[in-house]
């Protein structure tokens, strides 16, 4: 029982990371209706940016955290302006190819940084390697921070989408771009902002993940597991992304423990295939059909 709880907690921590990346994917899906395959790489860039701020610029952790999130937000806006906007309105797969290209370039360029790119780094966070004992339960502080931060971030995002002007405008644009445009909502500028927001969330995911794993150029591969998370939750549903992430994370942790070796790596993909067969719209997805 205790063991199961332990597995669920560590799975949930991992799942929160998937959920945060999936959150970015869902945000982008809601505005541009495509999947970004570069999101894992944005997370990787965020982790490296945090590393750079702490190691090279000598910032304390909290300042580096804020600086990284801001920098990645600006980067997201710039990325949207430079390469995404020119191809808006093209078929969905065009953007998929584009983001795959962006991912390649990001990974390649980071690997090319002399002496840093090919190494594996640890991010020196203040809560590194601490453990809480709650009864017989051993809680890893890094994992607790991930779960708590995800909760806070979700609340903040919920408040933003519910109560602020720009949040409501984003919702409108994601429901019907054309109608939103007619209502005078600056859809293009919002798209840029959404990319910035998605990149910032990815950066936070990267900073949270960094103490648990390490910082290295290929850590973006985890972004490929966030896609199943987004599908399971239902592409287009923000709470769904977090729930999907938790489902994927916990299934992965449980199958790593209870099933033979090898099942851990494919568990997310087995879950997503099952989900696509049973309920393609995901747990929270709306069932919509295109009408002619």
């Amino acid at each position, binding site marked *: 029982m205790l063991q199961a709880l332990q597995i669920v907690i560590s799975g949930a921590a991992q799942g929160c990371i998937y959920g945060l990346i999936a959150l970015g994917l869902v945000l982008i899906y809601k505005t*541009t*209706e*495509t*999947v970004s395959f570069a999101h894992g790489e944005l997370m990787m860039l965020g982790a490296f940016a945090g590393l750079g701020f702490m190691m090279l610029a000598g910032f304390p952790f909290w300042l580096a955290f804020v600086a990284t999130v801001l920098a990645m937000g600006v980067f997201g806006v710039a990325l949207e302006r430079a*390469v995404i906007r*020119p*191809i*808006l*309105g*093209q*078929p*969905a*797969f*065009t953007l*998929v*190819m*584009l983001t*795959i*290209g*962006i*991912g*390649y*370039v*990001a*990974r*390649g*360029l*980071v*690997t*090319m940084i*002399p002496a840093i*790119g*090919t190494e594996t780094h640890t991010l020196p966070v203040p809560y590194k390697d601490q453990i809480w004992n709650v009864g017989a339960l051993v809680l890893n502080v890094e994992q607790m921070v991930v779960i708590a931060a995800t909760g806070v971030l979700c609340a903040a995002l919920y408040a933003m989408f519910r109560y602020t002007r720009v949040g409501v405008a984003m919702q409108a644009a994601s429901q*019907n*771009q*054309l109608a939103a445009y007619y209502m005078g909502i600056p859809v293009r500028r919002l798209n840029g902002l959404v990319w910035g927001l998605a990149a910032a969330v990815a950066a936070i995911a990267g900073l949270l993940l960094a103490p648990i794993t390490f910082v290295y*150029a290929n850590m973006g591969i985890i972004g*490929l597991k966030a*896609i*199943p998370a987004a*599908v399971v939750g239902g*592409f*287009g549903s923000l709470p769904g992304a977090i729930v999907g992430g938790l489902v994927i994370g916990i299934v992965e942790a449980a199958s790593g423990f209870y099933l033979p070796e*090898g099942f851990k*790596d*494919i568990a*997310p*993909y*087995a879950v*997503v*295939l099952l989900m*696509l*067969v049973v309920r*393609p719209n995901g747990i929270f997805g709306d069932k*919509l059909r*295109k*009408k*002619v």
Partner: protein
Amino acid sequence: MRFLFKTSYLQDVRLAKHGGHVFWYGLLVLAMVAAPWLVSEYWLAQLTFILIYSVVGLGLMLLSGFTGLFSLGHAAFIGVGAYTEAALVGAGVPFPLAMAAAGLVSAAVGVVVGLPALRVKGIYLAIATLAFGFIVVEVFARWESMTGGNAGKHVKPPELLGWSADSDLSFYFICLVVAVLATLAILNLLRSPTGRAFVAIRDSEVSAQSLGIHLARYKTLSFAISAALAGIGGALYAHKLKFISPEQFDILQSIDLVLMIVVGGIGSIHGAFLGAIFLITMPQVIAQAKDYLPAVVGQAPGLQGAVYGLVLIAFVLFEPHGIYGRWLKLRTYLQIFPFYRKGMFKRQKSFLKSDRLK
């Protein structure tokens, strides 16, 4: 300028539309047949790889370029074909039979993947094939009695009635014949009702359905044919490398394949070949260019990935019809000189087409 005056219906059906086609493709075939005596051994090996990737590319082109279904797990089908071939040739089956079996097994797997994929569209299909690809690679790695696991598996040279194609020369000709046959098969398929149905599905599922095209059947068929070609390509790939292991068929290979057809020119048969040429020669070009770059850039390990990504971004942004599209523009420019206008191939801008809207 060339004007085609059609005087019989046969001219509509013929594959070679005019004398120029006959001349240039004839010349190409002659050059390919003479190639082993014209180029060095190294380039012959590269040429063999180009032919193998072209066969796979044709399959993926049929699926993505002509049916509008995207697959991010096509390397898995190559893997299925390669392991089937390795097992059968290892058991002493003559290679044409083994190759056919590789194609059939791949096609069967393709149908299995295609079935759940029928319920989902567009981006979801890409995700389903991605997930499938991961699972297949894991199966390759774990099913050790069959595949040799992560340690890999050796592949015997192709054999037929005591004759063994163990030299590079004979294997090159096997690849050439397979590639030519595959091209002719796809060309013929595309002008048949089935092929027309594929293109109709690509252009609009709703209108295809209302014209009486059975979506599920044709999508599954497209998946099966595409997987079969990938499997045959995989069989050749196994023989060429003589050694196969699971990581050769992972997601990176799948993305390379998609990159190949996008760069080559999506929606054209030429694109599969041009893309294969790009994919095989690009690492050589990068390797050559390394000597001229400063050491910080040239010797960095991530250079190839960065260049691939940049090329992909450049093509998506500036030339969505790929290398073949660029050639079409150049040819039109020359044909109608001096009347070429800048906007002749301009993409139609549209507001975001939504599948979600009610």
